[in-house]
């Protein structure tokens, strides 16, 4: 395992973005959302509810540091500091360990809200695949959670599983999707979704000389099926969107769409003015958190903590 992790095939590329069209100093309400997931962390800063900066980075073994890191990567050279932020909300699995946050909101509410902003008010079902849990969420036109479901107490077929898998076959996780379609015919899916047993099953296939691409297809299919089971329990309605890292894995997404008979919404900003902005499905949670912060501050439900 150790020598496998030296080269990190599983990690999605980190990144950050600054909106060139905004001068934060002119902003009246500046809010932030920080999403500390089990694997990756994101930070989003809004200036008067407009997307200003965001970052997407890896979570370390210490959540507070990861939160700080995410935010500092996001603000980068802009000169914006924590003291300039009116209100910050922490979310994600490490939400209680976000030092700069005034309160926390679960990623379930945040992803629904974020997806609503990113994809638009027609979104009815949001599927968020995190490192170790998948959440299926039904929401209304405001992004309000109507009901939701999460996978049980076993991480079978979660994001972490895909990462272990990427490590195992030594293929960067972003290549798995495309390559999983470079096959002659769809192979039977990996039968065990338990992260550990799936691993040995995969080793078995590699041993048998099954082409890597077929194995990737088999693994993506298993994962898609597992998600489908969860979604069926909840009931999927269009517009259906997937947030989180897995959304970037078309190997899973396309197969899931096939199983459900429902397409996922196109990965594009609902707000036409945002057309030029990068679209990162992983920031939905942090974005939702920042949006809740705006609402709370502007409605006077909470006091601004802005120092400068």
């Amino acid at each position, binding site marked *: 395992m150790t020598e496998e992790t030296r080269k990190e095939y599983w990690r999605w590329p980190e990144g950050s973005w600054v909106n060139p069209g905004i001068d934060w100093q002119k902003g009246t309400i500046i809010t932030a959302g920080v999403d500390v997931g089990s694997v990756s962390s994101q930070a989003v800063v809004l200036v008067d509810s407009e997307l200003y900066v965001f970052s997407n980075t890896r979570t370390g073994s210490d959540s507070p540091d990861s939160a700080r890191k995410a935010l500092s990567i996001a603000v980068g050279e802009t000169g914006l500091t924590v003291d300039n932020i009116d209100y910050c909300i922490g979310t994600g699995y490490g939400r209680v360990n976000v030092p700069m946050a005034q309160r926390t909101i*679960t990623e379930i509410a945040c992803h629904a809200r974020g997806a609503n902003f990113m994809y638009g008010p027609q979104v009815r079902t949001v599927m968020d695949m995190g490192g170790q849990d998948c959440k299926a969420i039904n929401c209304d036109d405001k992004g309000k*959670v109507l009901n*939701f479901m999460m996978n049980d*107490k076993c991480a079978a077929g979660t994001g972490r599983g895909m990462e272990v898998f990427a490590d195992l076959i030594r293929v960067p996780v972003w290549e798995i999707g495309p390559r999983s379609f470079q096959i002659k015919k769809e192979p039977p899916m990996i039968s065990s979704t338990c992260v550990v047993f799936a691993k040995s099953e995969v080793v078995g296939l590699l041993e048998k000389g099954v082409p890597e691409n077929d194995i990737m297809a088999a693994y993506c299919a298993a994962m898609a099926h597992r998600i489908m089971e969860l979604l069926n329990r909840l009931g999927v309605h269009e517009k259906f969107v997937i947030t989180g890292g897995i959304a970037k894995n078309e190997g899973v997404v396309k197969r899931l769409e096939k199983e459900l008979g429902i397409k996922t919404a196109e990965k594009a900003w609902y707000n036409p003015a945002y057309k030029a902005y990068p679209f990162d499905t992983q920031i939905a949670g942090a974005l939702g958190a920042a949006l809740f912060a705006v609402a709370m501050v502007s409605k006077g439900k909470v006091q601004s903590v802005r120092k400068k």
Partner: protein
Amino acid sequence: MIEEFKQWYDDRHSYAKEWKKNNRNGKVVGYFCTYVPEEILYAANCLPVRIIGGHEPPARATPHMFDMWCPFSRDCLSQGLAGYYDYLDGIMIAQCCLHVRQAFGAWQLQVPTPWSYYLCMPNAVTTSHAKKFLSGELAEFKKAVEEWVGKKITDADLDRGIDIMNTSRRLMKKVYEFRKEDNPLLTGTEAMTMVWASQLMDKREHNVLVAELLRGLPNRELDREPGIRLMIVGSENDDRPFMEMVESIGATFVIDDHCTGSRYFWDEIATNPDRLQAIADRYCDRVPCPTKDFQQETWERKRFPHILTLAKEYRVQGVILVQQKFCDPHECDIPSLKRYLEGNGIPCYVLEFEVTVPVGQFRIRIEAFIEQLRADELFD
């Protein structure tokens, strides 16, 4: 008082051992299901103690019950195999679900206990035939107990037993009344701790404590925000850490339907010169366990409207349906119950329980559910 309940709940075994010392000719009977007619045991000066889990991984049970049996039943057996119940003079069960029967059967063979009894509680409880059959079962049971303790059980004894149980029921129901208030005068965890204790302590002593609690409640100041009013529904539940966690993140359990809660004590015994028939009627008419919740003329269940009424009376905003893994009776009812309650405008969230509850993983689910219930705060 709550503290005493908690103390005796945590220290259940020393309590029973203590009791034995002070009641030389009394016997302690461990029982497996709340269909056991404790009235008759009290009439015979026995101390009925409900066998409940220890919330430890039931490792000892593995050789005796493989892991498709519900965690609770395996936990109970595991406690017995560990010798925690070595003070029991006898064990008994009233026919209920196959899981608990499994634990009872394994206990009979693997945990040395001087006396054991299987009371054949009927299933078709809504029929008059069942009431007749049960009173016959009770007569046999009474006889068996008389032979065991070597003493006749007179009508006066039965009246005493019935009175002890009815008093307990009446008092605990009164305590539950105080949970209807806008800011309930006791938390769900406290209320249920009281009920848990009642299944482990001598009801006579318990009744004194509850009466005392009742005197204190009206002018009790609970320094906490009640938050969302939740109801918790399921099979057995004595998971204190879980309930405390939920009540620490902006919610209060105001009512429950558990056999370790309201379902245990809700219904009293009516007076009837035929005491055994009176007892039989009560156990047939009580809020049923799902395993007995079927009627002979319709597929509808008797328990659902009862739960809805409770939810309304206690102004419940959301219901947490606890699904004990592998618990067939409840698993069969939960999808229907969820539809039924949601159809009546009450949001539900289903949680799957095991012996050891990963509080962390449950916290996010509950937090999200609470956020869902108080969405206006985030949205307006």
